[in-house]
């Protein structure tokens, strides 16, 4: 198991404690760790190296602020730089009408699904989209788009007899203007960037239909390959944006940083699920936190929504946001967790808990945590502050655990609440400090979580 980036940064930056000024020498170890950590998050080798160099330049010479652990400054610089990099560029789509969008990418990256999602989104924004099936290779790809178009009530164009992709594109444009569509999205076949024939084909399609947007659709879990892919597609097609898909999984998404650094093309949308509604605008800070393993409350809540009814989920999100989250909520949430499957992936999304491994004993541990909370009165669950020594002992007895376990649970719950408060205040710096503190104490999670 790769350690989470946050954890790695934590240990790397610990070495910086006690120095007066950041220098190349005293940061060397830490930055090496940072590089390794970025690599483990699938950031491309060269991109990771450049990124670290840039961060180093920004850090060297800075005085270590009093009252702040030296590492925190560095973490903040890294995070800010990452947000800046990821967020550069125009994330809105072109305002042209009719709006023509060409979707391109490797096999299985999610082009067809994203075409339907984008169609749905633009329809909501007042366009009349037509989706055009230009994947003549993969069996039933045309059927797939047709079914999705029908489902979302989008106009659809295909020519099942034709083998001439640019001609299909041109005919789709004609069909669009005939039926009053003011937006055409071209779904194309998956192709390898080294497949000269297919790259030539899509270039011709591009020349023919003159799209306003050329969007590269990329699997969020793509590895080092991301750079080769993005470079070639960009050179051949002058991309205008990226769509990062399958981020409802637990991939760190380091490929996004690679592609962004190499092409400079802005990330425009994020795919968060298989349903046509699971499409999101892109928030650089969320992705930066994800790459850095800092957790993503929003995704956590979204995940929860699949299993919990809407009202419950909203209530929970609200509570997390307001940091008004008590042990009873926690218990309820833990019971949901059981329904939600992989604990590990869930925990990765919790602030400050990304490094916590769910071992084989996790289920047992979770049961103990549950038992502890069950042994509390409702009042105690809502206001854990009232838990004095004798109450704690009673709870320990009731749950059949040692009192230290009760103490540990409460302490960690407090930390979690603090994290939520900081996130609520948007205090990135404070949050960093908190994270550092939690790491210093060794663990950032609940027992059993």
């Amino acid at each position, binding site marked *: *198991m*790769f350690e989470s980036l946050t954890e790695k940064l934590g240990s790397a930056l610990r070495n910086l404690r006690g120095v007066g000024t950041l220098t190349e020498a005293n940061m060397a170890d830490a930055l090496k760790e940072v590089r*390794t950590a970025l*690599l*483990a*998050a*699938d950031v*491309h*080798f*060269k991109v990771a190296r450049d990124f670290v160099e840039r961060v180093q330049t920004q850090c060297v010479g800075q005085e270590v602020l009093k009252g702040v652990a030296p590492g925190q400054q560095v973490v903040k610089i890294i995070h800010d730089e990452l947000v800046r990099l990821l967020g550069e560029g125009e994330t809105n789509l072109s305002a042209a009408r009719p709006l023509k969008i060409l979707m391109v990418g*490797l*096999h*299985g*990256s*999610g082009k067809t699904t994203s075409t339907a999602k984008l169609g749905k989104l633009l329809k909501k924004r007042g366009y009349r989209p037509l989706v055009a099936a230009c994947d003549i*290779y*993969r*069996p*039933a*790809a045309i*059927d*797939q788009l*047709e*079914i*999705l178009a029908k*489902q979302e009530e989008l106009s659809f164009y295909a020519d099942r007899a034709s083998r001439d992709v640019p001609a299909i594109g041109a005919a789709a444009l004609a069909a669009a203007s005939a039926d009053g569509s003011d937006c055409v999205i071209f779904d194309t076949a998956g192709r*390898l*960037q*080294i497949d000269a024939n297919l790259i030539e084909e899509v270039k011709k399609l591009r020349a023919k239909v003159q799209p306003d947007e050329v969007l590269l659709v990329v*699997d969020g*879990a*793509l*590895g*080092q*390959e991301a*750079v*080769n*892919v993005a470079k070639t597609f960009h050179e051949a097609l002058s991309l205008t944006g990226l769509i990062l898909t*399958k981020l*409802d*999984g*637990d*991939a*760190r998404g*380091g*490929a996004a940083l690679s592609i962004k650094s190499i092409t400079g093309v802005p990330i425009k949308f994020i795919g968060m699920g*298989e349903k046509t509604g699971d499409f999101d605008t892109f928030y650089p800070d969320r992705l930066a936190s994800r790459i850095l393993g800092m957790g993503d409350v929003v995704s956590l809540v979204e*995940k929860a929504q*699949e*299993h919990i009814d809407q009202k419950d989920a909203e209530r929970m999100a609200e509570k997390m946001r307001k940091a008004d989250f008590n042990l009873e909520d926690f218990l309820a949430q833990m019971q949901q967790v059981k*329904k*939600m*499957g*992989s604990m*590990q*992936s*869930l925990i990765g999304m919790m602030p400050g808990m990304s490094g916590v491994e769910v071992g084989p004993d996790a289920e047992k541990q979770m049961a103990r945590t549950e038992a502890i909370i069950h042994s509390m009165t409702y009042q105690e669950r809502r206001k854990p502050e009232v838990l004095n020594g004798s109450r704690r002992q009673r709870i320990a007895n009731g749950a059949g655990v040692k009192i230290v376990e009760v103490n540990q649970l409460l302490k960690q719950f407090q930390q979690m609440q603090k994290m939520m408060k900081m996130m609520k205040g948007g205090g990135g710096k404070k949050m960093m400090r908190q994270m550092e503190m939690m790491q210093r104490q060794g663990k950032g999670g609940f027992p059993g979580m």
Partner: protein
Amino acid sequence: MFGLFKKFKDGFAKTVKAISDQTAGIFFGKRIDADSLEELEEALYTADFGVETTAEILAEIRKAYTADETLQGRQAAEIGAAVLTRVLAGAEGALPPPATKPTVIAMIGVNGSGKTTTAAKLAWRLKGDGQMVTLAACDTFRAAAVEQLKSWATKLDIEVIASHPGADAAAVAFDAWQAAKARGRDYLIVDTAGRLHTKGHLMDELAKIRRVLQKHDPSAPQHRWLVVDGSLGTNSIEQAKVFHESFGLTGLVVTKLDGTSRGGALVGIWRQLKIPIYFLGLGEQAEDLQPFSVENYAKAVFGLDDQKV
């Protein structure tokens, strides 16, 4: 059937070239020095080998270099290939003749990894070996997934059992097994819907497919293969772990290695889980499925393949 073997060879030659492109420059015609070691590190990382394997290979080459400064590129490549061969020892999966009929092979994995294509390729390959195969279209979720498999089946003239979109995947598997049994088929290949490993309820559906098949035959599905996109990075290890935990994987197929991706993540998966790798996917045609060979892979990565040199 004519030309099948040649196609295999071509496909593999393509990979060989792709994998060795970057390293060949370092390994041939010169002595190793500090610069080339750095280049090598980059090449290993960009092959998605991950931190651990990269460090291990580099350490051995460095050790040899310290002992003998005249170390040649070719020798360094051989050391690298040897480390990789050692790390991957035992990683070759070989499909035994079907012990029971039908022997069930389930294809599982995340969305778009290549399950359906691999199911078709595998059916085609087994058919070529004289086996009788039935395909089960258990992706009842994704739009036109059933049509996709059916279209392959028609093209390759292989029987497929399918139901309507939205049907219960486990029920389709159940019926398909029955049909395959009644017709005396050797293999039943079950194509399933793509699912991210992080989605518990979808993982439950897989367990259900298994349970239902076990009503027919407690040992079914005998083979539970994860189909992994070879261009993914470290997350494929995470995928393999979770699928393994909930479904007990018996094998791996790594796809899309006809690109420039070197598929190094398979090394990480093997290191952690010791699930054998049966095939590599090398293209979109029925014959683009290559049995995995540790020796060929290790040689290819370091540009030592005889076809190339």
